[in-house]
Every structure is written in C-alpha cells, then in structure tokens.
C-alpha cells in the first residue's frame, strides 16, 4: 500500500495550556491533531497522577500531530513558543501515512 513520508510530533503539556497550544498550531497552519489524556507521569517537577491531583484541572494531555516533513519547523516553532516557559515535552518521530492529501 502506497505510503507517504510524514513527521509524528507528540507534545505532552499541561491541560490548562491546551487551548493556547492548539491556537498556536492553528496560527502555524497546522490543522490536524488528536489529544490523548495522560493519567499520570513523572518529570523534573515530581510525580503526579490524575486521581491524586489536588486541583483536578491541572493534569496533562498529549497532543499528537501528523504533518508533512516540510511543515515540521513551523510546527515546532509554534509548539515551542507555548511550551517554552511551561512544563512540557516535545518528541518527533519519522512516520509514514496513508492518504497524504490530508496533512
């Protein structure tokens, strides 16, 4: 089956920042993403879990974006502008997608 090169970008970020991130993505002309719930984790600021959250609103989510390789830099700039001062992790992998016209 015919596949096309793409980049898979996975951004783990605080729920309260989600709207700001997706706004930035839209401005950077990235129109497709999926948001996955994260139920816990650990990092430099310690360990947390959704059910142990003091303020239930401050959990994290994972935003997965598939983009054409040439759009990657634009996307990373947009994501970084939001993630910069905030907790968050950005991870890029090479991928193949079906139906390239969608990205």
């Amino acid at each position: 089956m015919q596949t096309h090169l793409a980049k898979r970008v996975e951004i783990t970020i605080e729920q309260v920042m989600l709207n700001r991130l997706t706004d930035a993505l839209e401005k950077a002309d990235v129109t497709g993403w999926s948001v996955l719930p994260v139920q816990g984790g650990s990092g430099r600021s310690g360990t947390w879990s959704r059910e142990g959250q003091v303020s239930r609103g401050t959990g994290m989510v994972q935003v997965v974006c598939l983009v054409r390789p040439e759009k990657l830099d634009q996307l990373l700039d947009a994501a970084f502008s939001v993630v910069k001062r905030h907790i968050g992790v950005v991870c890029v992998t090479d991928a193949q997608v079906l139906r390239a016209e969608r990205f």
Partner: protein
Amino acid sequence: MLDLALANLLSPIVLSFVLGVGAALARSDLSVPEAVAKGISIYLLFAIGFKGGVSLAEHGIDLTLGLSLLAGVVLSFILPLIGFVVLRVLSGMSRTDAAAVAGHYGSISIVTFVAATTVLVDAGISSEGYMVAVAAAMEAPAILAALWLISKGSDETDMSADLWREILLNGSIVLLLGAFAIGIATGSDGLARIESFIVSPFQGVLCIFLLDMGLIAGRGLRQAGVLDRGAIAFGLLMPLIGAAAGLIAALVIGLSTGGTMLLMTLSASASYIAVPAAMRVAVPQANPSIYLTLSLAVTFPFNLVLGIPLYLTIAQTLVGS
C-alpha cells in the same frame, strides 16, 4: 466551644475527611475517580447556589447585600497583600512563590464554605442567602492582587484578556452564580420540586466528597517536605488573620450571626481550584506543590476541623445566637 469542636469532630463529614487522610497516609489504593469527584462538585455547587438563591428570594434583598459584596471584593484583594508580608517574614520562599501562595488566601474554598453552611443548618442558625454570591465575588480579586505582587518584582507574568475571561468564567463560578440566579427565579416553588435531590442527600454526598478531599490532602501531606516550617506556620496563622478581617467587615456591615460566621470562613479559607489554574497559566515558574500543599493539606483541614467551630463560637459571642 469545646463541645462544638467535639461535635464537629465527630460529624460524619469530618470523619470522612479523616478517613481519606488516613488511607492516603497509609498508601492505600483507595481513590475516587476523577469524573465522580467532578460530578459531585457540580452537585455541591448547584445545590449550594440554588439554596442561596431561594433564601434570597424568600427573605428579600437586604440593604447589606451590596455592602457584603463590596466587602468580599476588598477582603479578597487585601488579604493577599497581608499574606505576602506575613509569608516573607515567616518563610524563606522566593518572592514569586510567596505571591502565588498569598493569592490563594485571598480567594476562597467553596467546600469549606459548604461545610460551614452545614454546621449552621445543623445548629439551626440561619444566614444571608446571598453569601453564596459573596463567595463568587471573592474568587478573582485575589488573583489580580497576586499578579500585581509578582509583576512588581521583575519576574514576568503571562497575563492576557484570555486569562481574564477564563478566570471570570471559570466553571465553578458560573455554576454557582447560575444556580443562585435559578434559585432566585424559581423561589421556594422551585426548591420544592428538587428538594429531595439538593437538600435531603446533601450531607451524605458531602461525606464522599470530603473522603476524596482527605485522600488528596493526605497525598499532599506525604509530600509536605516541600514546605519549610515557616510556610506551615503561615498555613495555620493566615486563616486566623483572614477570619479576623472577615469578622471586622461583618461587624461593620451588620451581618447576622450566621452571615458573620460565613464571611469569616470565606476569608479564612484558601482556594484550591480557580487560583491554582490561573497561576499555572500566568506564573508557571511558581512551584505548584507549595501552594497546593499549603492550601489543601494544611489550611483546609485546619478550617474544617478547628476553624469552623471556632468562627461560629466567636460569631455567636460577638453577634449573639
């Protein structure tokens, strides 16, 4: 007072909280699903707002309504400034962290408010229905004060129109005020229809909610290492300062015994929903463990167990019972 404190201590509500704390400290895997906890808090906000509205509709608008709202706004703005100074004296926290913490103490904890109304109901003491609106009015000014304190230091904060919209249209505030308005509009007729949902099972539902709060506070206590001694002292002292400020305001305005006790409780309590979320967005460099632990694992239990009966005793002594 001692009797009251003991009765309070032996109420199912407080004991459920204690159970939660104990389970978390013992590292039991007991937990309340996030969706259920959110569902219960929707129930509590709806019920408390609605009942406040009905009570306003029944007793009519008091001359003191406007004054109380004003007092709430002023207290909410001034308490963080006082708190900030106290905290800088007592604790070695950074300026940013201190400002973020102080902001929480200007704002309010709605569960503490709910627990206080329950104590009033049990004691057969009535209170001004509009205190619910005062609670809502006390959420935002504290955030403003905290951000002002932080911006005065050189640290950058991330303020925007968006953030203000989020703060003012925060789900809890909208639901509380919305239910309050519905209560005013439908009055006691409306209440009669949904009484067996929002009145009779209320205390039982609150038990489950406090069980969950206890679990969270207990988990917080296990991480209490983030707090220095000064911070813990602040978490116990600040509610008393807040309550005193609330008391003065209540006496000036001339609130009833119940209203006085509620304004003291509001002033004494610290936010753990609206303010933390706003701080995460605007001041990500402030450490959330500090303000959440202090607000939830120190001040909340203190108010629930000792503060509320204390404030009631004082209000009864000074205003009459």
